[in-house]
Protein backbone atom coordinates (compact mmCIF):
# COMPACT_ATOMS: atom_id res chain seq x y z
CA UNK A 1 0.00 0.00 0.00
CA UNK A 2 1.97 2.95 -1.22
CA UNK A 3 0.70 6.34 -2.22
CA UNK A 4 2.98 8.85 -3.88
CA UNK A 5 2.57 12.58 -3.88
CA UNK A 6 4.48 15.39 -5.49
CA UNK A 7 3.35 18.74 -4.14
CA UNK A 8 4.16 22.09 -5.78
CA UNK A 9 7.45 20.80 -7.12
CA UNK A 10 9.53 23.39 -8.89
CA UNK A 11 12.72 22.81 -10.83
CA UNK A 12 14.88 24.86 -13.18
CA UNK A 13 18.11 23.96 -14.95
CA UNK A 14 19.95 27.22 -15.37
CA UNK A 15 17.55 29.39 -17.37
CA UNK A 16 15.35 26.48 -18.43
CA UNK A 17 12.17 25.79 -16.53
CA UNK A 18 11.72 22.03 -16.15
CA UNK A 19 8.84 21.83 -13.68
CA UNK A 20 6.54 24.66 -12.67
CA UNK A 21 4.51 24.18 -9.50
CA UNK A 22 3.98 20.53 -10.38
CA UNK A 23 1.60 18.48 -8.27
CA UNK A 24 0.68 14.84 -8.77
CA UNK A 25 -0.93 12.35 -6.48
CA UNK A 26 -0.90 8.63 -7.20
CA UNK A 27 -2.99 6.05 -5.43
CA UNK A 28 -1.70 2.77 -4.14
CA UNK A 29 -1.25 0.12 -6.83
CA UNK A 30 -2.04 2.56 -9.59
CA UNK A 31 -0.15 2.82 -12.87
CA UNK A 32 0.17 6.43 -13.95
CA UNK A 33 1.83 7.46 -17.21
CA UNK A 34 3.47 10.83 -17.61
CA UNK A 35 3.07 11.66 -21.27
CA UNK A 36 4.36 14.61 -23.19
CA UNK A 37 6.70 15.84 -25.90
CA UNK A 38 10.43 15.84 -25.21
CA UNK A 39 11.48 18.60 -22.88
CA UNK A 40 8.08 18.79 -21.16
CA UNK A 41 9.56 17.86 -17.78
CA UNK A 42 8.23 14.31 -17.47
CA UNK A 43 11.64 12.73 -16.99
CA UNK A 44 12.63 15.46 -14.54
CA UNK A 45 9.52 14.67 -12.48
CA UNK A 46 10.52 11.00 -12.44
CA UNK A 47 14.13 11.76 -11.51
CA UNK A 48 12.99 13.97 -8.66
CA UNK A 49 10.80 11.12 -7.46
CA UNK A 50 13.73 8.71 -7.68
CA UNK A 51 16.01 11.14 -5.87
CA UNK A 52 18.47 11.64 -8.74
CA UNK A 53 17.53 15.30 -8.94
CA UNK A 54 16.75 17.63 -6.09
CA UNK A 55 13.71 19.88 -6.54
CA UNK A 56 14.20 23.62 -6.07
CA UNK A 57 10.96 23.72 -4.12
CA UNK A 58 8.03 21.54 -3.12
CA UNK A 59 7.83 18.14 -1.47
CA UNK A 60 7.81 14.47 -2.37
CA UNK A 61 5.88 12.26 0.02
CA UNK A 62 5.41 8.51 0.22
CA UNK A 63 2.48 7.37 2.38
CA UNK A 64 2.48 10.81 3.92
CA UNK A 65 6.18 10.78 4.84
CA UNK A 66 8.31 13.53 3.36
CA UNK A 67 11.24 11.92 1.51
CA UNK A 68 12.33 15.04 -0.42
CA UNK A 69 15.85 14.94 1.03
CA UNK A 70 16.41 11.16 1.11
CA UNK A 71 19.14 9.92 -1.25
CA UNK A 72 18.02 7.44 -3.95
CA UNK A 73 19.48 4.39 -2.19
CA UNK A 74 17.25 4.98 0.82
CA UNK A 75 13.98 5.41 -1.05
CA UNK A 76 13.43 1.76 -1.85
CA UNK A 77 12.23 2.38 -5.39
CA UNK A 78 12.77 0.21 -8.43
CA UNK A 79 13.80 1.94 -11.61
CA UNK A 80 14.01 0.89 -15.24
CA UNK A 81 15.93 3.08 -17.68
CA UNK A 82 15.59 3.63 -21.40
CA UNK A 83 19.12 2.38 -22.10
CA UNK A 84 18.70 -0.73 -19.89
CA UNK A 85 21.80 0.13 -17.79
CA UNK A 86 22.46 -3.47 -16.90
CA UNK A 87 25.78 -4.08 -15.18
CA UNK A 88 27.98 -5.35 -18.06
CA UNK A 89 30.25 -7.38 -15.78
CA UNK A 90 27.39 -9.46 -14.37
CA UNK A 91 25.16 -12.14 -15.90
CA UNK A 92 21.40 -11.63 -16.13
CA UNK A 93 21.04 -13.61 -12.92
CA UNK A 94 23.67 -11.59 -11.07
CA UNK A 95 22.06 -8.39 -12.27
CA UNK A 96 18.72 -9.43 -10.82
CA UNK A 97 20.42 -10.55 -7.62
CA UNK A 98 22.35 -7.30 -7.12
CA UNK A 99 19.68 -5.40 -5.21
CA UNK A 100 18.98 -8.39 -3.00
CA UNK A 101 22.66 -8.69 -2.13
CA UNK A 102 22.71 -5.03 -1.22
CA UNK A 103 19.72 -5.72 1.04
CA UNK A 104 21.78 -8.52 2.65
CA UNK A 105 19.17 -11.19 2.08
CA UNK A 106 20.27 -14.78 2.71
CA UNK A 107 21.60 -16.84 -0.20
CA UNK A 108 18.57 -19.16 -0.14
CA UNK A 109 16.14 -16.28 -0.18
CA UNK A 110 18.06 -14.60 -3.01
CA UNK A 111 18.08 -17.75 -5.11
CA UNK A 112 14.37 -18.22 -4.54
CA UNK A 113 13.45 -14.65 -5.50
CA UNK A 114 15.77 -14.60 -8.52
CA UNK A 115 14.34 -17.90 -9.75
CA UNK A 116 10.85 -16.50 -9.46
CA UNK A 117 11.84 -13.29 -11.29
CA UNK A 118 13.49 -15.25 -14.10
CA UNK A 119 10.34 -17.30 -14.30
CA UNK A 120 7.84 -14.43 -14.47
CA UNK A 121 9.91 -12.56 -17.05
CA UNK A 122 10.48 -15.75 -19.09
CA UNK A 123 14.25 -15.37 -19.03
CA UNK A 124 15.01 -19.01 -18.18
CA UNK A 125 17.43 -19.83 -20.99
CA UNK A 126 19.16 -16.45 -20.79
CA UNK A 127 19.82 -16.35 -17.05
CA UNK A 128 23.52 -17.05 -17.31
CA UNK A 129 24.17 -14.76 -20.28
CA UNK A 130 25.93 -11.43 -20.04
CA UNK A 131 24.10 -8.26 -21.15
CA UNK A 132 26.03 -7.99 -24.42
CA UNK A 133 24.73 -11.45 -25.38
CA UNK A 134 21.07 -10.41 -24.97
CA UNK A 135 18.69 -8.67 -27.37
CA UNK A 136 17.15 -5.31 -26.47
CA UNK A 137 13.88 -6.85 -25.34
CA UNK A 138 15.67 -9.44 -23.22
CA UNK A 139 17.86 -6.78 -21.66
CA UNK A 140 14.86 -4.72 -20.70
CA UNK A 141 13.19 -7.79 -19.19
CA UNK A 142 16.28 -8.34 -17.06
CA UNK A 143 16.18 -4.69 -16.05
CA UNK A 144 12.52 -5.05 -15.13
CA UNK A 145 13.20 -8.21 -13.13
CA UNK A 146 16.08 -6.47 -11.38
CA UNK A 147 13.86 -3.53 -10.49
CA UNK A 148 11.01 -5.59 -9.02
CA UNK A 149 13.16 -8.27 -7.34
CA UNK A 150 13.71 -6.06 -4.31
CA UNK A 151 9.93 -5.59 -3.84
CA UNK A 152 10.16 -1.84 -4.34
CA UNK A 153 7.61 0.49 -2.79
CA UNK A 154 7.28 2.28 -6.10
CA UNK A 155 8.31 1.24 -9.61
CA UNK A 156 9.64 3.98 -11.88
CA UNK A 157 9.95 3.39 -15.62
CA UNK A 158 11.77 5.97 -17.71
CA UNK A 159 10.82 5.40 -21.38
CA UNK A 160 11.56 1.70 -20.95
CA UNK A 161 10.35 0.74 -24.42
CA UNK A 162 11.71 3.58 -26.53
CA UNK A 163 14.85 1.76 -27.63
CA UNK A 164 12.99 -1.36 -28.77
CA UNK A 165 11.45 -2.18 -32.13
CA UNK A 166 7.69 -2.02 -32.60
CA UNK A 167 6.78 -5.65 -32.08
CA UNK A 168 8.90 -6.20 -28.98
CA UNK A 169 7.68 -2.87 -27.65
CA UNK A 170 4.07 -3.95 -27.77
CA UNK A 171 4.55 -7.34 -26.15
CA UNK A 172 6.83 -6.00 -23.42
CA UNK A 173 4.34 -3.20 -22.78
CA UNK A 174 1.62 -5.72 -22.05
CA UNK A 175 4.02 -7.78 -19.98
CA UNK A 176 4.87 -4.77 -17.83
CA UNK A 177 1.19 -4.11 -17.22
CA UNK A 178 0.48 -7.76 -16.40
CA UNK A 179 3.36 -7.90 -13.90
CA UNK A 180 2.38 -4.59 -12.39
CA UNK A 181 -1.18 -5.74 -11.77
CA UNK A 182 0.09 -9.06 -10.43
CA UNK A 183 2.37 -7.59 -7.78
CA UNK A 184 0.23 -4.50 -7.28
CA UNK A 185 3.14 -2.09 -7.19
CA UNK A 186 2.45 1.63 -7.51
CA UNK A 187 4.02 2.56 -10.85
CA UNK A 188 4.97 5.70 -12.69
CA UNK A 189 5.74 5.26 -16.37
CA UNK A 190 7.26 8.04 -18.44
CA UNK A 191 6.76 7.99 -22.19
CA UNK A 192 6.33 10.21 -25.22
CA UNK A 193 4.27 7.55 -26.99
CA UNK A 194 0.55 8.15 -26.58
CA UNK A 195 -0.43 4.64 -27.67
CA UNK A 196 1.75 3.20 -24.95
CA UNK A 197 0.29 5.53 -22.37
CA UNK A 198 -3.32 4.97 -23.39
CA UNK A 199 -2.89 1.20 -23.57
CA UNK A 200 -1.54 0.44 -20.11
CA UNK A 201 -2.37 3.27 -17.73
CA UNK A 202 -4.97 3.63 -15.04
CA UNK A 203 -4.51 7.34 -15.48
CA UNK A 204 -2.41 9.42 -17.85
CA UNK A 205 -0.86 12.76 -16.96
CA UNK A 206 -0.33 14.88 -20.08
CA UNK A 207 2.47 17.37 -19.61
CA UNK A 208 3.80 20.34 -21.52
CA UNK A 209 6.28 23.04 -20.58
CA UNK A 210 6.73 21.69 -17.07
CA UNK A 211 3.02 21.69 -16.29
CA UNK A 212 0.47 18.97 -15.86
CA UNK A 213 -2.20 19.78 -18.45
CA UNK A 214 -4.60 17.02 -17.52
CA UNK A 215 -4.55 13.90 -15.37
CA UNK A 216 -7.31 11.48 -16.27
CA UNK A 217 -8.11 7.89 -17.29
CA UNK A 218 -7.14 7.25 -20.93
CA UNK A 219 -10.70 7.25 -22.21
CA UNK A 220 -11.64 10.50 -20.52
CA UNK A 221 -8.47 12.07 -21.82
CA UNK A 222 -9.39 11.15 -25.36
CA UNK A 223 -13.08 11.94 -25.17
CA UNK A 224 -12.98 15.04 -23.01
CA UNK A 225 -9.61 16.71 -23.39
CA UNK A 226 -9.26 19.60 -20.97
CA UNK A 227 -7.70 21.97 -23.48
CA UNK A 228 -6.37 22.39 -26.99
CA UNK A 229 -2.95 21.00 -26.14
CA UNK A 230 -4.31 17.73 -24.78
CA UNK A 231 -6.78 17.49 -27.66
CA UNK A 232 -4.08 17.79 -30.28
CA UNK A 233 -1.48 15.73 -28.44
CA UNK A 234 -3.75 12.73 -27.87
CA UNK A 235 -5.04 11.28 -31.10
CA UNK A 236 -5.81 13.39 -34.16
CA UNK A 237 -7.90 16.53 -33.72
CA UNK A 238 -9.78 18.52 -36.36
CA UNK A 239 -10.52 22.14 -35.59
CA UNK A 240 -13.83 23.09 -37.18
CA UNK A 241 -15.94 26.26 -36.87
CA UNK A 242 -18.63 26.31 -34.16
CA UNK A 243 -21.48 28.74 -33.58
CA UNK A 244 -23.70 29.34 -30.51
CA UNK A 245 -27.01 27.50 -30.52
CA UNK A 246 -30.11 27.67 -28.33
CA UNK A 247 -29.83 26.68 -24.65
CA UNK A 248 -26.09 27.32 -24.36
CA UNK A 249 -25.36 24.56 -26.85
CA UNK A 250 -23.13 24.74 -29.91
CA UNK A 251 -23.67 24.08 -33.56
CA UNK A 252 -20.87 21.96 -34.98
CA UNK A 253 -20.84 20.46 -38.50
CA UNK A 254 -24.59 20.74 -38.80
CA UNK A 255 -25.54 19.33 -35.38
CA UNK A 256 -26.30 20.77 -31.98
CA UNK A 257 -23.94 19.52 -29.26
CA UNK A 258 -23.00 20.28 -25.68
CA UNK A 259 -19.74 22.25 -25.41
CA UNK A 260 -17.04 21.67 -22.81
CA UNK A 261 -14.05 23.73 -21.77
CA UNK A 262 -14.97 27.08 -23.29
CA UNK A 263 -12.36 29.76 -22.78
CA UNK A 264 -11.52 33.23 -24.13
CA UNK A 265 -13.56 35.03 -26.77
CA UNK A 266 -14.45 34.59 -30.45
CA UNK A 267 -13.62 33.14 -32.97
CA UNK A 268 -14.89 29.79 -31.82
CA UNK A 269 -13.76 26.36 -32.97
CA UNK A 270 -14.77 22.86 -31.94
CA UNK A 271 -12.34 19.98 -31.64
CA UNK A 272 -13.66 16.96 -33.52
CA UNK A 273 -12.02 13.55 -33.77
CA UNK A 274 -11.66 11.92 -37.24
CA UNK A 275 -13.98 9.08 -36.23
CA UNK A 276 -16.68 11.56 -35.13
CA UNK A 277 -17.10 12.73 -38.72
CA UNK A 278 -19.59 11.04 -41.05
CA UNK A 279 -19.02 11.24 -44.80
CA UNK A 280 -21.82 11.38 -47.38
CA UNK A 281 -21.11 10.70 -51.00
CA UNK A 282 -22.29 13.98 -52.52
CA UNK A 283 -21.67 17.54 -51.45
CA UNK A 284 -19.44 20.56 -51.64
CA UNK A 285 -16.37 18.92 -50.15
CA UNK A 286 -13.68 17.05 -52.03
CA UNK A 287 -11.52 14.09 -51.06
CA UNK A 288 -7.84 15.04 -51.27
CA UNK A 289 -6.19 11.86 -49.93
CA UNK A 290 -7.18 8.35 -48.90
CA UNK A 291 -5.11 5.99 -46.78
CA UNK A 292 -6.19 2.42 -46.20
CA UNK A 293 -5.35 1.46 -42.60
CA UNK A 294 -6.97 -1.98 -42.43
CA UNK A 295 -10.33 -1.83 -40.64
CA UNK A 296 -10.61 1.89 -41.24
CA UNK A 297 -9.76 4.22 -44.08
CA UNK A 298 -8.50 7.72 -43.35
CA UNK A 299 -9.74 10.45 -45.68
CA UNK A 300 -8.27 13.91 -46.11
CA UNK A 301 -11.13 16.18 -47.10
CA UNK A 302 -11.19 19.82 -48.19
CA UNK A 303 -14.51 21.50 -47.42
CA UNK A 304 -15.24 25.06 -48.66
CA UNK A 305 -16.86 26.04 -45.31
CA UNK A 306 -14.91 24.00 -42.81
CA UNK A 307 -11.46 23.86 -44.32
CA UNK A 308 -9.30 20.74 -44.33
CA UNK A 309 -10.35 17.89 -42.06
CA UNK A 310 -9.35 14.30 -41.49
CA UNK A 311 -12.11 11.72 -41.28
CA UNK A 312 -11.88 8.04 -40.40
CA UNK A 313 -14.53 5.79 -41.92
CA UNK A 314 -14.95 2.04 -41.78
CA UNK A 315 -13.15 0.56 -44.76
CA UNK A 316 -16.30 -1.30 -45.84
CA UNK A 317 -18.08 2.07 -46.09
CA UNK A 318 -15.20 3.71 -47.91
CA UNK A 319 -15.25 1.29 -50.79
CA UNK A 320 -14.89 3.15 -54.07
CA UNK A 321 -13.99 6.52 -52.53
CA UNK A 322 -11.12 8.13 -54.39
CA UNK A 323 -9.25 11.42 -54.33
CA UNK A 324 -11.26 13.97 -56.30
CA UNK A 325 -14.65 12.55 -55.29
CA UNK A 326 -17.26 15.01 -53.97
CA UNK A 327 -18.40 14.45 -50.40
CA UNK A 328 -20.29 16.15 -47.61
CA UNK A 329 -19.09 15.98 -44.00
CA UNK A 330 -21.21 16.13 -40.87
CA UNK A 331 -20.94 15.28 -37.22
CA UNK A 332 -21.98 11.72 -36.45
CA UNK A 333 -25.31 11.33 -34.70
CA UNK A 334 -23.84 9.64 -31.61
CA UNK A 335 -21.55 12.57 -30.74
CA UNK A 336 -23.05 14.41 -27.76
CA UNK A 337 -20.37 16.87 -26.75
CA UNK A 338 -17.19 18.41 -28.14
CA UNK A 339 -14.42 20.57 -26.80
CA UNK A 340 -15.15 24.17 -27.68
CA UNK A 341 -12.26 26.63 -27.91
CA UNK A 342 -12.76 30.37 -28.02
CA UNK A 343 -10.31 33.14 -28.71
CA UNK A 344 -6.77 31.92 -29.00
CA UNK A 345 -7.24 28.86 -31.11
CA UNK A 346 -3.58 28.00 -31.17
CA UNK A 347 -2.15 25.41 -28.86
CA UNK A 348 -2.40 26.47 -25.22
Amino acid at each position, binding site marked *: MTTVELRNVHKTFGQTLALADFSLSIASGELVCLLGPSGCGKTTALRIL*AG*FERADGGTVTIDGTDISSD*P*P*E*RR*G*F*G*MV*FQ*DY*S*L*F*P*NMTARQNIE*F*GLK*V*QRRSADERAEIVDRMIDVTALGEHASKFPHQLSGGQKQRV*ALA*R*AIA*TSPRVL*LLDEPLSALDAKVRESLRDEIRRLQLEIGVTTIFVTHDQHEALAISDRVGVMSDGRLEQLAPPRELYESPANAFVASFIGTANRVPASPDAGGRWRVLGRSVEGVGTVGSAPVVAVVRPEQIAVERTGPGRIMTTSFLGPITRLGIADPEVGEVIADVMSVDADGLRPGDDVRIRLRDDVERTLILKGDTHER
Partner: protein
Amino acid sequence: MKSSRAMSILKWAFLVLIAMYFAVPMLAMARFAFQNVPTVLLTSDTLLTGWSLGGLWSALSNPKVVSATWISLWIAVFAIAMNFLLLVPLAIVTEVRSPRMRPVLTALTLVPWVVPPVALVVGVSATFRAAAPWFLANTLCLVPFYALWAMPFTYRVLDNGLQAMGARTLFEAARGLGAPLWTVILRVIMPNMRAALVAAAMLTTALVLGEYAFASLLLKSTLPTQMLVYAGGDPRGGLALALFVLVVTAVCLGIVVRLMRKRGVSLPTTGF
Protein backbone atom coordinates in the same frame (compact mmCIF):
# COMPACT_ATOMS: atom_id res chain seq x y z
CA MET B 1 38.00 6.95 -64.51
CA LYS B 2 41.49 7.71 -65.63
CA SER B 3 42.04 10.30 -62.95
CA SER B 4 40.75 7.99 -60.22
CA ARG B 5 43.27 5.34 -61.27
CA ALA B 6 45.99 7.95 -61.25
CA MET B 7 44.89 8.96 -57.75
CA SER B 8 45.01 5.35 -56.64
CA ILE B 9 48.54 4.90 -58.03
CA LEU B 10 49.60 8.13 -56.38
CA LYS B 11 48.11 6.97 -53.09
CA TRP B 12 50.03 3.71 -53.21
CA ALA B 13 53.23 5.40 -54.26
CA PHE B 14 52.85 7.75 -51.31
CA LEU B 15 52.21 4.89 -48.91
CA VAL B 16 55.23 2.96 -50.17
CA LEU B 17 57.35 6.08 -49.84
CA ILE B 18 56.27 6.61 -46.26
CA ALA B 19 56.76 2.93 -45.43
CA MET B 20 60.28 3.15 -46.84
CA TYR B 21 60.95 6.29 -44.86
CA PHE B 22 60.37 4.23 -41.72
CA ALA B 23 61.47 0.82 -42.88
CA VAL B 24 64.80 1.58 -44.52
CA PRO B 25 66.46 3.12 -41.46
CA MET B 26 64.98 0.37 -39.29
CA LEU B 27 66.37 -2.30 -41.58
CA ALA B 28 69.71 -0.57 -41.64
CA MET B 29 69.62 -0.44 -37.83
CA ALA B 30 68.67 -4.08 -37.64
CA ARG B 31 71.49 -5.11 -39.97
CA PHE B 32 73.99 -3.06 -38.05
CA ALA B 33 72.75 -4.35 -34.70
CA PHE B 34 72.19 -8.01 -35.45
CA GLN B 35 74.68 -8.86 -38.24
CA ASN B 36 78.14 -9.78 -37.10
CA VAL B 37 79.72 -8.25 -40.22
CA PRO B 38 82.06 -5.26 -40.39
CA THR B 39 80.11 -2.12 -41.32
CA VAL B 40 81.91 -1.61 -44.63
CA LEU B 41 80.89 -5.09 -45.78
CA LEU B 42 77.15 -4.55 -45.07
CA THR B 43 76.12 -4.67 -48.71
CA SER B 44 73.51 -6.63 -50.63
CA ASP B 45 75.94 -9.56 -50.92
CA THR B 46 76.05 -10.08 -47.18
CA LEU B 47 72.29 -9.77 -46.60
CA LEU B 48 72.00 -13.23 -45.07
CA THR B 49 75.36 -13.77 -43.42
CA GLY B 50 76.35 -13.49 -39.79
CA TRP B 51 73.01 -12.74 -38.14
CA SER B 52 73.21 -13.13 -34.37
CA LEU B 53 71.52 -11.96 -31.19
CA GLY B 54 74.89 -11.82 -29.42
CA GLY B 55 74.93 -8.04 -29.17
CA LEU B 56 71.46 -7.99 -27.66
CA TRP B 57 72.30 -10.73 -25.14
CA SER B 58 75.42 -9.01 -23.97
CA ALA B 59 73.52 -5.73 -23.66
CA LEU B 60 70.69 -7.43 -21.76
CA SER B 61 73.15 -9.12 -19.42
CA ASN B 62 75.02 -5.95 -18.61
CA PRO B 63 74.33 -5.31 -14.90
CA LYS B 64 74.01 -1.57 -15.41
CA VAL B 65 71.42 -2.02 -18.15
CA VAL B 66 69.56 -4.56 -16.04
CA SER B 67 69.41 -2.32 -13.00
CA ALA B 68 68.41 0.68 -15.16
CA THR B 69 65.60 -1.42 -16.65
CA TRP B 70 64.34 -2.30 -13.18
CA ILE B 71 64.54 1.34 -12.14
CA SER B 72 62.52 2.37 -15.20
CA LEU B 73 59.91 -0.31 -14.53
CA TRP B 74 59.58 0.71 -10.87
CA ILE B 75 59.23 4.33 -11.90
CA ALA B 76 56.50 3.26 -14.31
CA VAL B 77 54.71 1.32 -11.56
CA PHE B 78 54.82 4.27 -9.17
CA ALA B 79 53.80 6.75 -11.87
CA ILE B 80 50.85 4.54 -12.79
CA ALA B 81 49.83 4.19 -9.13
CA MET B 82 50.12 7.93 -8.59
CA ASN B 83 48.02 8.75 -11.64
CA PHE B 84 45.38 6.17 -10.78
CA LEU B 85 45.06 7.41 -7.21
CA LEU B 86 44.66 10.93 -8.50
CA LEU B 87 42.70 10.49 -11.71
CA VAL B 88 40.39 7.51 -11.16
CA PRO B 89 38.33 9.25 -8.44
CA LEU B 90 38.49 12.49 -10.40
CA ALA B 91 37.26 10.86 -13.62
CA ILE B 92 34.46 9.02 -11.81
CA VAL B 93 33.26 12.09 -9.93
CA THR B 94 33.38 14.19 -13.11
CA GLU B 95 31.47 11.65 -15.18
CA VAL B 96 28.83 10.94 -12.56
CA ARG B 97 28.38 14.27 -10.84
CA SER B 98 29.38 17.04 -13.19
CA PRO B 99 29.84 15.93 -16.79
CA ARG B 100 29.83 19.55 -17.81
CA MET B 101 33.27 19.88 -16.20
CA ARG B 102 34.74 17.25 -18.52
CA PRO B 103 36.07 19.61 -21.24
CA VAL B 104 37.64 21.80 -18.55
CA LEU B 105 39.40 18.82 -16.99
CA THR B 106 40.53 17.48 -20.34
CA ALA B 107 42.08 20.86 -21.07
CA LEU B 108 43.67 21.01 -17.62
CA THR B 109 45.22 17.57 -17.95
CA LEU B 110 46.79 18.69 -21.23
CA VAL B 111 48.71 21.49 -19.49
CA PRO B 112 51.77 19.30 -18.72
CA TRP B 113 52.35 18.90 -22.44
CA VAL B 114 52.38 22.63 -22.96
CA VAL B 115 55.34 23.07 -20.63
CA PRO B 116 58.56 21.73 -22.20
CA PRO B 117 60.51 19.21 -20.08
CA VAL B 118 63.47 21.57 -19.79
CA ALA B 119 61.36 24.31 -18.28
CA LEU B 120 59.67 21.83 -15.97
CA VAL B 121 62.93 20.32 -14.75
CA VAL B 122 64.67 23.64 -14.30
CA GLY B 123 61.71 25.06 -12.43
CA VAL B 124 61.32 22.08 -10.18
CA SER B 125 65.01 21.65 -9.47
CA ALA B 126 65.43 25.34 -8.66
CA THR B 127 62.57 25.05 -6.17
CA PHE B 128 63.49 21.72 -4.62
CA ARG B 129 67.25 22.17 -4.43
CA ALA B 130 66.63 24.92 -1.92
CA ALA B 131 63.59 23.50 -0.13
CA ALA B 132 64.20 19.73 -0.10
CA PRO B 133 67.55 18.72 -1.58
CA TRP B 134 66.99 15.03 -0.74
CA PHE B 135 64.11 14.88 -3.17
CA LEU B 136 66.17 15.35 -6.31
CA ALA B 137 68.92 13.05 -4.99
CA ASN B 138 66.58 10.07 -5.22
CA THR B 139 66.02 8.37 -8.59
CA LEU B 140 62.33 8.06 -7.74
CA CYS B 141 62.04 11.85 -7.97
CA LEU B 142 61.28 11.10 -11.62
CA VAL B 143 57.94 9.53 -10.66
CA PRO B 144 55.94 12.77 -10.36
CA PHE B 145 57.44 14.04 -13.62
CA TYR B 146 56.38 10.95 -15.52
CA ALA B 147 53.02 10.87 -13.77
CA LEU B 148 52.47 14.44 -14.90
CA TRP B 149 53.68 13.64 -18.40
CA ALA B 150 51.35 10.62 -18.67
CA MET B 151 48.41 12.51 -17.19
CA PRO B 152 46.76 13.69 -20.44
CA PHE B 153 46.25 10.28 -21.97
CA THR B 154 45.69 8.50 -18.67
CA TYR B 155 42.78 10.83 -18.01
CA ARG B 156 41.38 10.49 -21.50
CA VAL B 157 41.60 6.72 -21.50
CA LEU B 158 39.86 6.52 -18.10
CA ASP B 159 37.23 9.02 -19.18
CA ASN B 160 36.60 7.05 -22.36
CA GLY B 161 36.25 3.84 -20.39
CA LEU B 162 33.65 5.45 -18.13
CA GLN B 163 31.69 6.86 -21.02
CA ALA B 164 31.80 3.60 -22.96
CA MET B 165 30.19 1.70 -20.08
CA GLY B 166 27.60 4.43 -19.49
CA ALA B 167 28.89 5.00 -15.97
CA ARG B 168 26.31 7.63 -15.21
CA THR B 169 23.23 5.47 -15.60
CA LEU B 170 24.98 2.42 -14.13
CA PHE B 171 25.65 4.56 -11.08
CA GLU B 172 22.02 5.58 -10.91
CA ALA B 173 20.77 2.04 -11.50
CA ALA B 174 22.94 0.72 -8.67
CA ARG B 175 22.03 3.48 -6.25
CA GLY B 176 18.37 3.06 -7.12
CA LEU B 177 18.74 -0.57 -6.05
CA GLY B 178 19.92 0.62 -2.65
CA ALA B 179 23.69 0.28 -3.10
CA PRO B 180 25.82 2.71 -1.12
CA LEU B 181 28.51 4.73 -2.91
CA TRP B 182 31.40 2.35 -2.21
CA THR B 183 29.50 -0.71 -3.30
CA VAL B 184 28.70 0.99 -6.59
CA ILE B 185 32.33 1.92 -7.20
CA LEU B 186 33.83 -1.43 -6.18
CA ARG B 187 31.22 -3.80 -7.58
CA VAL B 188 29.97 -1.96 -10.65
CA ILE B 189 32.28 0.82 -11.85
CA MET B 190 35.76 -0.63 -11.22
CA PRO B 191 35.17 -4.08 -12.75
CA ASN B 192 34.01 -2.40 -15.94
CA MET B 193 37.02 -0.09 -16.02
CA ARG B 194 39.55 -2.91 -16.18
CA ALA B 195 40.30 -2.48 -19.88
CA ALA B 196 40.75 1.27 -19.49
CA LEU B 197 43.05 0.79 -16.50
CA VAL B 198 45.22 -1.74 -18.34
CA ALA B 199 45.35 0.54 -21.38
CA ALA B 200 46.41 3.54 -19.29
CA ALA B 201 49.05 1.47 -17.50
CA MET B 202 50.48 0.16 -20.78
CA LEU B 203 50.67 3.63 -22.28
CA THR B 204 52.41 4.99 -19.19
CA THR B 205 54.91 2.12 -19.25
CA ALA B 206 55.65 2.74 -22.91
CA LEU B 207 56.23 6.40 -22.15
CA VAL B 208 58.58 5.74 -19.22
CA LEU B 209 60.60 3.21 -21.25
CA GLY B 210 61.18 5.81 -23.96
CA GLU B 211 61.49 9.12 -22.14
CA TYR B 212 64.98 10.59 -22.21
CA ALA B 213 64.77 14.33 -21.51
CA PHE B 214 63.67 14.32 -17.86
CA ALA B 215 66.04 11.56 -16.80
CA SER B 216 68.98 13.07 -18.63
CA LEU B 217 68.36 16.57 -17.30
CA LEU B 218 68.07 15.26 -13.75
CA LEU B 219 71.16 13.03 -14.24
CA LYS B 220 69.32 9.80 -13.43
CA SER B 221 70.17 6.36 -14.74
CA THR B 222 67.03 4.98 -16.38
CA LEU B 223 66.78 2.57 -19.30
CA PRO B 224 66.85 5.30 -22.00
CA THR B 225 69.83 7.15 -20.50
CA GLN B 226 71.68 3.91 -19.76
CA MET B 227 71.03 2.77 -23.31
CA LEU B 228 72.94 5.79 -24.61
CA VAL B 229 75.80 5.19 -22.19
CA TYR B 230 75.98 1.54 -23.19
CA ALA B 231 75.89 2.39 -26.89
CA GLY B 232 78.98 4.55 -26.32
CA GLY B 233 80.99 1.42 -25.45
CA ASP B 234 79.16 -1.11 -27.67
CA PRO B 235 77.34 0.60 -30.54
CA ARG B 236 75.94 -2.66 -31.92
CA GLY B 237 74.63 -3.88 -28.58
CA GLY B 238 73.22 -0.43 -27.80
CA LEU B 239 71.32 -0.33 -31.03
CA ALA B 240 70.12 -3.92 -30.59
CA LEU B 241 68.81 -2.95 -27.17
CA ALA B 242 67.07 0.11 -28.59
CA LEU B 243 65.36 -1.99 -31.24
CA PHE B 244 64.35 -4.55 -28.66
CA VAL B 245 62.74 -1.88 -26.45
CA LEU B 246 61.01 -0.47 -29.52
CA VAL B 247 59.47 -3.85 -30.32
CA VAL B 248 58.37 -4.42 -26.72
CA THR B 249 56.75 -0.99 -26.64
CA ALA B 250 55.03 -1.59 -29.96
CA VAL B 251 53.64 -4.88 -28.65
CA CYS B 252 52.41 -3.07 -25.51
CA LEU B 253 50.62 -0.47 -27.61
CA GLY B 254 49.19 -3.19 -29.84
CA ILE B 255 47.66 -4.79 -26.76
CA VAL B 256 46.20 -1.42 -25.78
CA VAL B 257 44.54 -1.01 -29.16
CA ARG B 258 43.11 -4.53 -28.92
CA LEU B 259 41.75 -3.94 -25.43
CA MET B 260 40.14 -0.67 -26.38
CA ARG B 261 38.53 -2.14 -29.50
CA LYS B 262 37.13 -5.00 -27.48
CA ARG B 263 35.43 -2.48 -25.24
CA GLY B 264 33.98 -0.67 -28.22
CA VAL B 265 36.33 2.29 -27.87
CA SER B 266 38.00 3.26 -31.10
CA LEU B 267 41.37 4.80 -30.62
CA PRO B 268 40.76 7.92 -32.73
CA THR B 269 38.27 9.08 -30.10
CA THR B 270 40.93 8.85 -27.43
CA GLY B 271 43.00 11.30 -29.41
CA PHE B 272 45.84 8.97 -30.33
